[in-house]
């Protein structure tokens, strides 16, 4: 039955093929259209990953496969190609290639050091230069013979070619790698829509942060949907194109595993299904990758070993870097093992030998050959929607296949032919005859036993003596040379190959002409080379931890039932400071406080004698754990961006701050613009994913800023373009945006159909009391100004941060109900802080303002308890109240004091055990608990350090061995760390 169908399809194709051969193009001379009817015989055909047909006959005609049959006969009229001993594979498909397209170039120029507010692109396009959904690769595509040849060397027959530039990169074109006209090689004019988190060559200022990219994508999804339903916008070709490309597969390129999760956030919000072009570090969080439900395109980007010969150089490398060298090749295997569907791309590889080298590494690291082949054939074909045409060898599909000398992924395998749509491309001509085997060679008066291998031959004289024979074959003629005897002159022979018999004439070392012949006496020499296998066996030394680096967890820590006895409890409640009291943590909550506790069986008992227990420290103003940019500084208002989109769960500062007793941090947007972005409130759950770190049930916040940073006072004058440049302008920014937001809200209330505007929506939340402000501020005048703006618009300024002149208007703040989150003692770093005083906190506190001390600094955050002590030193705040400056008060300011901030039954078990009075410079955090889970333990930390050193050393030794064994190395460039402050501004949107 099946066979009949096959024949039927074949007949159908035959007829259709002839019809399709008509083209509009004129031709010159006598028409020469051939049907390309071939039969490949005696080959091992691998029609698709996991199956194999030995001694198969593959018949193709007019670019398509007609049949594949075991021991099949050659149809009359077909050209026979004897492929004995050869392998035939479907040719490979790369769905992430840049081929035959012009290089992306910036549109126009951006004046040096000046902001560019709008796109430079002329025409009825959208406002942002980094969004190019209108770029249709097929309109720009020109076949490029040299590049095609190179790609065919990789084994590719079809690629999806895109311009790798921009956030929306437009659509790709799926092409075969033939040498024909563009018309003929384009298989699918629109392959997929490609996206990324990088704005590429766009010179426009927005977005200059990762969170800006996220916001831009969100708003674009919304705008495009709105555009479809309304004519308010006029013509916007970009939005039109955006809507068009939504029907295609959506491929999202990311640069690390956290970006996979970020892309999936967008996917979920807008009902998209992204194929993720990964970065190769997915093995670090396999479970999350699996859970994301995404399909992947994986690069094979495996780093060379670092040169760690110099111990000081090695010292600069991080554990993550060391591990990545060892583990990156396991990435595809781990993904396959987890049952995650993926394609493989050669993106990043310039040479085919490097690509196959990397593939072999991946296979040696556990990827099955079938999975490897599938990821390069069937999977990309399916994802690109061309599986009817390509990806496997089956009747009716394109005749896109490879003829190889041995199994495709084996070392030393040559690709002889790469057939593209039935057209042969010869890389390495098929030998007329398989030459390998054992021969008896007679040359003149001498007779030898010769063994011919794939690369060279040997003559065996006796047990000890072997002679090297050089040979080359070309078009059935053969040349041999070898020493007549050990150390003697060369015999030089030339002749023809006639099946198993070679014969011809030659000269011996004396120059005398001789006859010679060689006859094959035995089968093929062992094809398998011995090298290649030896690297596989070495054991892996990298630990799997979360986060994937120093101080990570090998298994996730669990909440414990803990009783701390006889400690000094700083309750921050009416009961004040309790001496010699017990506290119990259970199920992640504070279960009992005070007195002597009879705990449940199995509870962990801690002797708290001499220790102090406080609520965990809450940093109201932090910039740790943020990926790619703390400021979206391109516009005066960026209320639409959110740090919550870009939390970096791998930042080692999380662990460092746990060691200083911090349990909750508000990750704030910077202070580059009057209306900044939304913040993220996180608990320092080290080792968790960004989403898992977020403080559940906390209200939203947004950063505002006043003064020198927003008016760009401390910059070169060429920046003096972006509004505002004075404190006068700052007020007007707020007036303007809140007026807009109010109108937006009123329109919604009237039931008008409005374009959902994420920026105004956020501001409207402020007006409605649903979102709170933390405002960067210094001078009393501007503080007062914002209070008055808020009064006029009927909202409350929740928190002034920095607020170094708060002491001058503490009465006004108290009256308004604004809190102050300040530095304990910073000043003199810029003009607006010349009147800052360390008594600021004490005065505001006395005037009834809720006062917090914050860090705004990754280092200081580890010692916020010491900063609190300065409220005692400067202004005589009581110790009990001073500790609240870094615990309960920030909790109040953040509206989370019902959950954290004091030792109260039912609150989250976020606590710190200190070795001393927490306000003393001598106090060290012994244990830090978040939700009853011990995330930091002073003693365990010591153990971890030892384990870290051991693992580092094992990896370094392994790298040294690799170098010794001849592996390529790269210089030991250590990974560094970026510490953000309020005013860090760089273009990180790229």
């Amino acid at each position, binding site marked *: 039955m099946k066979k009949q169908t096959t024949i039927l399809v074949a007949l159908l194709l035959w007829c259709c093929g002839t019809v399709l051969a008509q083209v509009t193009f004129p031709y010159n001379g006598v028409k020469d259209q051939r049907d390309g009817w071939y039969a490949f015989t005696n080959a091992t055909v691998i029609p698709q990953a996991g199956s194999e047909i030995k001694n198969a006959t593959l018949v193709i005609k007019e670019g398509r496969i007609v049949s594949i049959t075991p021991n099949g006969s050659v149809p009359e009229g077909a050209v026979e190609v004897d492929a004995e001993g050869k392998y035939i594979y479907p040719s490979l498909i790369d769905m992430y290639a840049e081929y035959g397209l012009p290089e992306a170039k910036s549109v126009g120029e951006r004046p040096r050091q000046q902001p560019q507010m709008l796109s430079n692109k002329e025409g009825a396009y959208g406002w942002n230069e980094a969004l190019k959904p209108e770029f249709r690769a097929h309109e720009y595509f020109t076949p490029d013979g040299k590049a095609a040849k190179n790609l065919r060397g990789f084994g590719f027959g079809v690629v999806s070619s895109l311009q790798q530039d921009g956030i929306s990169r437009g659509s790709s074109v799926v092409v075969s790698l033939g040498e024909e006209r563009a018309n003929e090689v384009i298989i699918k004019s629109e392959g997929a829509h490609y996206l990324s988190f990088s704005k590429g060559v766009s010179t426009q200022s927005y977005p200059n942060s990762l969170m800006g990219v996220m916001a831009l994508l969100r708003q674009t999804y919304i705008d495009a949907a709105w555009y479809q339903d309304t004519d308010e916008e006029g013509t916007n070709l970009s939005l039109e194109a955006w809507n068009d490309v939504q029907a295609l597969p959506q491929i999202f390129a990311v640069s690390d595993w956290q970006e996979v999760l970020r892309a999936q956030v967008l996917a979920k919000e807008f009902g998209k299904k992204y194929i993720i072009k990964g970065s190769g570090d997915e093995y670090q969080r396999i479970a999350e990758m699996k859970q994301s439900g995404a399909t992947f395109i994986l690069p094979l980007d495996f780093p060379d070993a670092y040169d760690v010969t110099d111990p000081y150089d090695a010292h*600069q490398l*991080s554990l993550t870097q060391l591990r990545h060298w060892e583990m990156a090749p396991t990435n595809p295997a781990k993904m396959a093992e987890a049952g995650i569907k993926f394609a493989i791309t050669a993106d990043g590889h310039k040479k085919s030998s490097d690509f196959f080298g990397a593939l072999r590494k991946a296979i040696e690291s556990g990827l099955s050959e079938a999975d490897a082949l599938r990821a390069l054939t069937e999977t990309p074909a399916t994802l690109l929607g061309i599986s009817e045409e390509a990806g496997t060898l089956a009747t009716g599909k394109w005749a896109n296949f490879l003829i190889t000398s041995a199994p495709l992924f084996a070392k030393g395998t040559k690709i002889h032919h790469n057939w593209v749509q039935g057209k042969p491309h010869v890389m390495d001509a098929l030998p007329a005859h398989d030459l390998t085997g054992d021969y008896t060679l007679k040359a003149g008066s001498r007779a030898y036993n010769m063994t011919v291998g794939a690369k060279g031959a040997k003559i065996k004289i006796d047990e000890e003596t072997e002679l090297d024979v050089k040979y080359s074959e070309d078009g059935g003629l053969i040349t041999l040379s070898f020493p007549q005897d050990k150390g003697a002159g060369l015999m030089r022979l030339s002749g023809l190959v006639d099946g198993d018999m070679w014969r011809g004439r030659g000269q011996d070392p004396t120059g005398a002409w001789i006859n010679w012949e060689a006859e094959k006496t035995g089968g093929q020499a062992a094809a398998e080379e011995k090298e290649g296998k030896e690297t596989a066996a070495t054991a892996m030394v990298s630990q799997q931890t979360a986060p994937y680096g120093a101080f990570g967890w090998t298994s996730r820590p669990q909440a414990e039932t803990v009783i701390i006895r006889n400690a000094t409890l700083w309750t921050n409640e009416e009961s004040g400071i309790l001496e010699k009291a017990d506290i119990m943590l259970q199920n992640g909550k504070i279960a009992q406080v005070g007195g002597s506790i009879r705990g449940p069986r199995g509870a962990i008992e801690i002797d708290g004698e001499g220790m102090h227990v406080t609520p965990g420290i809450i940093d109201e103003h932090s910039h740790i754990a943020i990926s790619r940019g703390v400021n979206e500084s391109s516009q005066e208002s960026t209320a639409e961006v959110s740090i919550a989109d870009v939390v970096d769960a791998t930042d080692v500062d999380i662990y460092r701050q746990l060691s200083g007793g911090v349990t909750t941090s508000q990750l704030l947007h910077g202070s580059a613009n009057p209306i900044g972005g939304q913040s993220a409130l996180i608990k320092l759950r080290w080792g968790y994913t960004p989403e898992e770190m977020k403080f559940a049930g906390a209200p939203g916040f947004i950063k505002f800023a006043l003064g020198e940073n927003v008016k760009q006072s401390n910059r070169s004058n060429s920046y003096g373009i972006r509004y505002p440049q004075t404190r006068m302008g700052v007020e007007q920014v707020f007036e303007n945006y809140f007026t807009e937001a109010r109108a937006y809200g009123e329109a919604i209330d009237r039931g008008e159909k409005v374009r959902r505007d994420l920026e105004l929506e956020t501001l409207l939340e402020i007006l409605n009391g649903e979102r709170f402000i933390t405002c960067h501020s210094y001078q009393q005048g501007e503080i007062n100004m914002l209070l008055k703006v808020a009064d006029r618009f009927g909202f409350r300024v929740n928190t002034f941060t920095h607020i170094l002149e708060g002491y001058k208007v503490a009465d006004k703040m108290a009256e308004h109900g604004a809190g102050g989150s300040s530095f304990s003692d910073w000043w003199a770093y810029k003009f607006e802080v010349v009147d800052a005083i360390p008594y600021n906190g004490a005065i505001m506190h006395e005037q009834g303002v809720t006062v917090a001390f914050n860090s705004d600094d990754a280092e200081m955050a580890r010692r916020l308890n010491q900063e609190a002590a300065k409220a005692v030193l400067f202004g005589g705040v009581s*110790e009990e109240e001073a500790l609240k400056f870094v615990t309960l008060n920030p909790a109040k300011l953040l509206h989370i004091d019902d959950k954290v901030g004091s030792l109260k039954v039912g609150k989250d078990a976020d606590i710190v055990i200190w070795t001393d009075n927490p306000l003393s*410079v001598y106090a060290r955090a012994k244990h830090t608990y978040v939700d009853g889970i011990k995330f930091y333990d002073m003693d365990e930390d010591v153990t971890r350090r030892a384990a870290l050193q051991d693992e580092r050393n094992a990896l370094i030794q392994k790298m040294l061995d690799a170098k010794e064994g001849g592996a390529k190395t790269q210089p030991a460039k250590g990974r560094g760390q970026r510490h953000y402050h309020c005013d860090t501004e760089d273009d990180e949107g790229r």
Partner: protein
Amino acid sequence: MQLKHIFLLFATLLSSLLMAQPPVPGAVQAKPIAIVGGTAHLGNGEVIENALVTFDQGKITRVDRASAKVDLSDHEVVDGTGKHIYPGLIAPNTQLGIVEIAAVSATRDNAETGYLNPNARSLVAYNTDSQVTPTVRSRGVLFAQVTPQGGALSGQSSIVQLDAWNWEDAAVLADDGHHLNWPRRRSYSWRQGTWTKNERYAEQVQSVEDFLRQAQAYCAGADREPNLRLASACGLFNGKQRLFVHANLAKDIEQAILLGKKFDLDLVIVGGEESYLVTELLREYKVPVVLGPTHALPGTLDSDVDQPFKTPAALHEAGVQFCLSNEGFWQQRNLPFQAGTAVAYGLPYEKAIQALTLDAASILGVADRIGSLEVGKDASLIITSGDVLDMRTSVVEHAFIDGRKVDLDNKQDQLYRRFQTKYQRQK
């Protein structure tokens, strides 16, 4: 109530008189002074409980137990009971007095333009009328090594006392040393997230070495054409000046030591983030370290989270001579707490005091005059109500420089009083 109001009125008057002016420098010691009782931390590692410290005409005359029978009838007696007495603290490597507001260039005199500026002298730029200085000395820091920055050779620092009419009065030791910022062998690329090699590193090191070679020859010869740059370095070769090399990486420290040996220089390492890796070498070559801020983040991602906190203890245990420092200018008021943290992480307490006093004085070359409570030394000391290293207790009640009583008032305290008045009136 009445009394309080009078006091407030007085305070208001006083503050409005003094507003925006740093306090008047203390008058020359007119009468012998005796501090009776209290714990004296001598700065050399010794402690005397219930101590007696006397000084006259600006010099310390007695350091003893309070039980000693001494006639103090002509002395002004300060009751030290329950207090702590320390030598005035010394802040090495600071821009105090040469930067007033960091972001305002008109107030910055810390970095001259150019790569080799050995002839620049910080002393002449030192502003005795800075509003920042009084806030620092009120925390017990009475001396500073005012240090230029920028380029490779930044210029010469000077040791000043922090209660003076002008820079001449202020100088304790003018032009104490030169400062070399060891060329950076790498730079951080945030785009790549990694450190990358400085391709000009060898050339930059060479230019410094060439300069020293030229200067050495110049200083040895007679009748040379005048050259300000070369001449300014002669102190390095005749033992009058030290070379402070600002270096953090182990390799940089090693290379600096080599350079010091090559030119037979009196070498001091400043910063020394990775000094804990090369303690043997530092001890072997007797190179002291002005350790950078204890309150710093670890140098590499994998470093122990408390590495900078415990580096002082590591140097101490390894027998390396070192003192402590803090970066910047206004930040010097937190200098004592840098030592406090070092104590929390293993440095013995008196050793920490020594690292802010006598060891700092020795490393800066002024130990003959300041740094410890010893007879014959300058009467420059502080009296605190509690432990000076702990912010919980670090209240400085009195300070003396050369026996002169230092006014501990400052702009920030004035502003505090001013606004206390505002809120008092509202009651």
